[in-house]
């Protein structure tokens, strides 16, 4: 049986399991039908031209983990940003781990999607936002059909959340092959501020496929900073679809740091429903071996006087492959739009590949839109310059690559997170940068 057939036939069992009377029963049923029609994307789909899911879909994934698994904090402490106080929502094999988490209902809701979907007090927010921002493509629909657990974050009007929120998804690999489908909803009300750090992490080498969907609603004057750390084991694959609906005068940034995994696909979509706002989409990708990272971004400028900034840097070693597909749509009404997009890549090996494809669809006539894409090797004259000052080749290369990705790191607003990411980059590049960052 193909994975698609298996998933479709598992649906009834799933619904029975979660509660058929659930108010999102209709949404789930509709979604499974969409998935049945659409199926998994193939390379024939324009948006999937450079990324094939064949190698990750061949496994016979278990859809429902058979057992509860636990992890000890000390074994996974390194995956947390633990040097600052944070809220934490932690999942192990898709199940909530209360002893590792620190949730709250005190002035804001940082809790579980399962609670939000079943308790009446969340009904209004669920009715207004759940599955309203996500598109109805095959993969997102699959996630919607099986949506049950994930992070639910609701920040009320004027609330400035003092500490960042960490969302961590661990997979233990105790099931030989596991399909995880976390579903997150983040609603930030008028004039509220929040910072969120999200990480998917497998702790063994067993194949795991995560098909994650996150919906973010940023209301008037909200400020949302979202950081994704993707540094998974070599047999873990991640399809991350994130949908952001922005209202007027809001500021939303999403940083995606992709350093690991077998196959990573990021679908990052911004919809600007209002005036005078900005959207920031930044990314650093550093991969090697046969790893594959695909960034598929969309910024839809719907109304006038808005900005978007995209800056993606990639460093590709060995036989790794990268894709950047950045689409910007500027509606006819969206005059005075400023949309910038930049994608710079360094290929360290003859066998590494990057496919970079900017797509601008501009229907307004008074706009500033730019895109730039570069693909190159490390600058030989810069290397000689550094070596002539006594910096060995390996360290010189590391420093140059660090400098290359530095622009993106600069915009990370949580110092401890920036330090952590710099450390991951230094480890990844195999160098001691030689100074405190």
């Amino acid at each position: 049986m193909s994975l698609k057939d298996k998933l479709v036939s598992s649906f009834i069992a799933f619904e029975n399991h979660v509660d058929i009377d659930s108010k999102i029963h209709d949404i789930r049923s509709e979604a499974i039908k969409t998935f049945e029609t659409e199926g998994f994307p193939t390379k024939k789909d324009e948006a999937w031209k450079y990324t094939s899911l064949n190698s990750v879909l061949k496994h016979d994934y278990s859809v429902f983990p058979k057992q509860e698994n636990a992890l000890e904090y000390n074994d996974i402490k390194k995956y947390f940003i633990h040097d600052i106080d944070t809220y934490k929502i932690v999942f192990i094999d898709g199940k909530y781990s209360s002893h590792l988490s620190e949730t709250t209902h005190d002035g804001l809701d940082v809790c579980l999607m399962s609670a939000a979907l079943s308790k009446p007090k969340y009904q209004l927010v669920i009715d207004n936002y759940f599955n309203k921002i996500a598109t109805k493509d095959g993969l997102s629909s699959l996630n919607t059909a099986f949506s049950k657990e994930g992070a639910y974050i609701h920040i009320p009007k004027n609330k400035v959340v003092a500490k960042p929120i960490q969302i961590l998804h661990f997979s233990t690999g105790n099931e030989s092959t596991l399909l995880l489908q976390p579903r997150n909803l983040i609603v930030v009300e008028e004039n509220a501020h929040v910072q969120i750090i999200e990480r998917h992490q497998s702790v063994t080498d067993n194949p795991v496929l995560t098909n994650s969907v996150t919906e973010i609603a940023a209301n008037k004057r909200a400020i949302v900073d979202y950081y994704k750390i993707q540094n998974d084991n070599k047999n873990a694959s991640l399809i991350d679809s994130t949908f952001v609906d922005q209202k007027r005068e809001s500021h939303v940034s999403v940083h995606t740091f992709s350093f690991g995994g077998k196959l990573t696909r990021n679908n990052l979509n911004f919809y600007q429903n209002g005036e005078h706002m900005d959207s920031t989409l930044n990314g650093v990708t550093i991969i090697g071996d046969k790893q594959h990272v695909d960034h598929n971004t969309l910024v839809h400028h719907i109304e006038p006087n808005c900005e978007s900034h995209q800056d993606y840097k990639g460093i590709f070693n060995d036989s790794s492959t990268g894709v950047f597909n950045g689409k910007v749509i500027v509606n006819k009404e969206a005059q005075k739009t400023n949309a910038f997009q930049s994608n710079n890549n360094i290929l360290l090996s003859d066998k590494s590949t990057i496919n970079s494809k900017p797509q601008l669809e501009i229907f307004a006539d008074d706009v500033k839109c730019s895109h730039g894409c570069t693909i190159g090797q490390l600058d030989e004259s810069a290397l000689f310059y550094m070596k002539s000052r006594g910096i060995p080749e390996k360290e010189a290369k590391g420093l140059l690559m660090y400098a290359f990705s530095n622009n993106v790191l600069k915009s990370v607003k949580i110092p401890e997170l920036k330090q952590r990411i710099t450390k991951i980059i230094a480890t990844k590049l195999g160098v001691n940068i030689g100074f405190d960052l």
Partner: protein
Amino acid sequence: MLKINNLHASVEDKSILKGINLEVKAGEVHAIMGPNGSGKSTLASVIAGKEEYEVTDGNILLDNEDIEDLAAEERAHKGVFLSFQYPVEIPGVSVTNFMKTAINQTRKAKGLEDMPAKEMLQLIREKSELLEIDRKFLSRSLNEGFSGGEKKRNEIFQMAMLEPKLAILDETDSGLDIDALRIVANGVNKLKSKDNAVIVITHYQRLLDYIVPDFVHVLYNGKIVKSGGKELAHELEEKGYDWIKEEEDAKNN
């Protein structure tokens, strides 16, 4: 300190240096002059260890050790410093962090611990004052957006930080106004001692009014065709290079 014997070097099979002989002793200042394209910058790059250049004959001895097989960084660790004619921009790395890395990597190569932060700051303060460099300048990305003069001053600042045994200044005077030239020359003169040596590569005699050479060599067509004292520089300034070219071309015909 430095002994160059019959050095031949080429890049992409094009022969550029055609038999250079030069000896530089500790405490000496040598000027290498010559028309454009005579091989001055190539000589500097070959001594510093740029890999694109292939040494096809002859050798370079530093303290009696052949350095041909040493990488550029290993030569730097042994005290060779090249002030670049065109310093490279490195966005994202500040001047301070670049110097910290360079100094600590050099110390590491010598089996020493990293320089304590306090000592490093003290050194940076002292040397930046010597070169009249503003503090704010040090936190800027290396050479990015620097004016020609700032780049050159920054090169000499790096030299002051690294305290090389043999400093090669490649056209350090180009792009400098008279004030910057004075500051740079003053910096070099303060760093001079009986234990180190300087090779000044220049097209013009101007810099040599400030950094007074013990010897002047004229490089033409990949060879040193004339050597003399500082008065040779004045002669070149007056008469240009044409008479040297004519003399040489006459010899060869």
